[in-house]
């Protein structure tokens, strides 16, 4: 039996007091500890990847394999790891800037490929670490460091985009509900396919309006509504809904072959981490 302490480093998190990232970190730790203690995975199988931003510091706090990659590129790194060693459990963490601004292309394509990795987006509606600029999820009209006259753009809908890209597990979590988020992360890890969890993560510094309280009053759980996560059209309908109330939970979950299932070589002898010499003379035979 392991405990959260066993996967925690000596580093004190450098997030602002009251930051939503703490809730995500706790949920992640709990999920991993639970799954390991259930005997489903070994600790060394986990690989975390984080982008650049406040959220990205998470890899410093966990005594687990990790890649603190460059801004916006969590998913291609995740893809590479998974393709090279499908036995690893890959969990990517990105900010909303990371994931939906500079890195949006990779979300679409990783979902399309159904790469079996978990993608946790710390959605605080701001570029946090670079000091509070607008992101693709910031609401229309909001004033930020880079939009003093109010954001002239409507926000994107990451849930809808992920659904439209073929993601097989699409969920929204809330950093203020650690128990629920822990459950979501566990389900996402167990899911055989690409799993997005967009997590509402209050940023008290750059967005004092959308606080924990703000969200707590508005979120409700899809699990309690009879929503059928196997139905794409209902999922889309739920994704479009943003009428004062905000659904959290699993919008969509289906089983579909992953890219690894569909690449025939994996069934033969492809083990990209096993590097073996091939005879040069033999390789050159066809050229003579």
């Amino acid at each position: 039996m392991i405990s959260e302490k066993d996967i925690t480093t000596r580093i004190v998190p450098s997030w602002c007091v009251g930051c939503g990232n703490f809730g995500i970190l706790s949920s992640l730790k709990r999920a991993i500890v639970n799954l390991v203690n259930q005997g489903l995975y070994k600790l060394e199988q986990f690989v975390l990847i984080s982008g650049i931003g406040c959220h990205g510091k998470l890899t410093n706090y966990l005594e687990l394999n990790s890649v603190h990659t460059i801004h916006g590129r969590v998913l291609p790194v995740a893809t590479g790891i998974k393709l090279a060693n499908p036995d690893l459990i890959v969990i990517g963490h990105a900010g909303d800037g990371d994931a939906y601004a500079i890195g949006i292309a990779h979300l679409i394509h990783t979902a399309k490929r159904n790469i079996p990795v978990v993608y946790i987006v710390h959605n605080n509606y701001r570029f946090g670490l670079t000091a509070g600029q607008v992101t693709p999820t910031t609401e229309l009209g909001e004033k930020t460091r880079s939009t003093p006259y109010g954001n002239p753009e409507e926000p994107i809908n990451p849930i809808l985009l992920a659904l439209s890209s073929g993601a097989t597990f699409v969920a929204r979590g809330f950093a203020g509900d650690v128990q629920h988020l822990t459950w979501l992360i566990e389900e996402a890890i167990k899911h055989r396919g690409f799993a997005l969890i967009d997590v509402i993560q209050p940023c008290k510094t750059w967005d004092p309006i959308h606080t924990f309280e703000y969200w707590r009053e508005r979120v409700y759980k899809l699990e309690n509504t009879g929503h059928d996560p196997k139905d794409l059209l209902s999922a889309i309908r739920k994704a479009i809904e943003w009428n004062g109330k905000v659904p959290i939970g699993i919008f969509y979950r289906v089983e579909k072959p992953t890219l690894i299932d569909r690449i025939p070589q994996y069934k033969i002898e492809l083990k990209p981490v096993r590097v073996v010499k091939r005879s040069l003379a033999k390789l050159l035979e066809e050229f003579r």
Partner: protein
Amino acid sequence: MSKNLLQITIGGPAGFGILRSGWLLGKAFSLIGLNVAAISEYPSRIEGGHNYVDVCISKDPVGSKQPKSDVVVALDDLAVDRHIGRLEDDGILIYDSSIVKKELKGDRFAGLPFTRVARERGFDEITRNTMALGATLYSLGMDVQPLKVAISKAFGKKEVVEMNLKALEVGLELMREVYPGLKINTPIEILKANGDPKYFISGNEAVAVGAMAAGLTVYVAYPITPISPLLHYLVTKQEHGLLAYQLESEIAAILTGLGASYAGARVLVGTSGPGFSLMAESLGFAGMAEIPIVIVLAQRYGPSTGLPTHTGQGDLRFAMHASQGEFPRFIVAPGDVRETIYYTQVLLNLTEKFQVPGIILIDRCLAESYFTFDDIDGLEVDIDRGKIVEEVKGKYKRYEITDDGVSPLAFPGTPNAVVRINSHEHDEEGISSEDPKVAVSMSDKRLRKLKFMREEIKKYTPVKVYGDKESKNAIIFWGSVKGPVLDAYRLLERDGISCRLVQILFFSPFPDSEVLDSLKGAEMIISVENNATSQLVSVLREFVGVSVSYRVNKYDGRPFTPIDVYEAVMKVMRK
């Protein structure tokens, strides 16, 4: 031009299979032990326009094409226009008279209705080329057998092979019937050649073979001319424990590669200038996080989109300095297909041994042309993955400070090891740190590798000298310019001009002392580069303070011919 060379040009619209015909012809000659360079040119379009290939054949080594040809096979009017002026005085033009509309009168011109005959015989029209090859062989007085072997190797389907074999005979017969006397005075050593088959391979294939020999497990790319054929080749080889995959962009490709490398794969990424530009940020990530990876960068005429299907050597400096900040990298620029096979293996080892990124710098000319070589002696390189640890005792530190700057490397999944890598400056465990002392010690750790890298490349002849090694005249060059320079040397020798030829293979780390040695006593130094600004010259000035006396540059997207080099050198010499 020395007459132990034979050159055949085949030209026609894109979509006619011109390049394939060049390959067939080159392959045929290589099978009887001759040296071949088959260098093609095609525009950036899929059908129409003008494709052609120059197949240069010799008993001696050959690494370039000649300005003039002994036989021109023209499959449309454009091909006639473009190449009629390239005929040697005693050369022969063979053209498809069912396509070419132009009136052609001359006793060295052979018009034969290949397309019509193909149609009549119920062949696919595309066999017109093979017929023309038959006609060519007749005029050369060469046996068709080797070409038959080449055909059977080239085509998968039996029916296609048979159709082409028939077309070949038909073409030969046609020529014999209509122009029995139109003959080339084929050099005797070509006519009578029956040596062992040579290896006949393109630069792209050479990269593939080298990488596979070195145990490559992951190839990632986004398609781009002229490196796409590497992807096309490797995707067919995936049964052998190799994943070759196309990603959504070059950025995705290299980062997928870096993820795979971190996880333990041996990774190659292929691209050209535009894609390499997009990879610049990730290159620095590899530098900072110390992730081994090899990028093969096939240069083309730039800047920007430039001429996508045409050659150039404009990216040397960019390869040396791409990405912000300072970190060691390997750059090797092989000059021919044999060197490409060799250095690809070497670089896959070196990048893992030193845990740094590496770049194999080739160009369109080398990547997509076919050349021969004889033997594989000393060509195979053992796999060396450096300081890999499979078992971990005690605390594993990914960035442990060591004397040579290289830390033991574990892959994720290793019990007891937390393998943490980081694009941010970090401590030995890979945890982010902003401490100025940590920054200095980690910068020093990374840059300390350079000294050992510089030592290491000495094992792999970072500089080669050919010709008269004591001569006061030196021609200095890099990359695929090797072919025309070495071929030009034979012409210079004939004219009694002595010179040494100095080829730089490694550009990072730069082999200062070897370069200085190679130039010792040289008074006149002539650079030859396929670019406009003489990037090699700037590197020589920077690293060894050597000034070049004359610069020969070609920057029209086309490779040098030996004559270009010869004439430029002669002009200088005459001064």
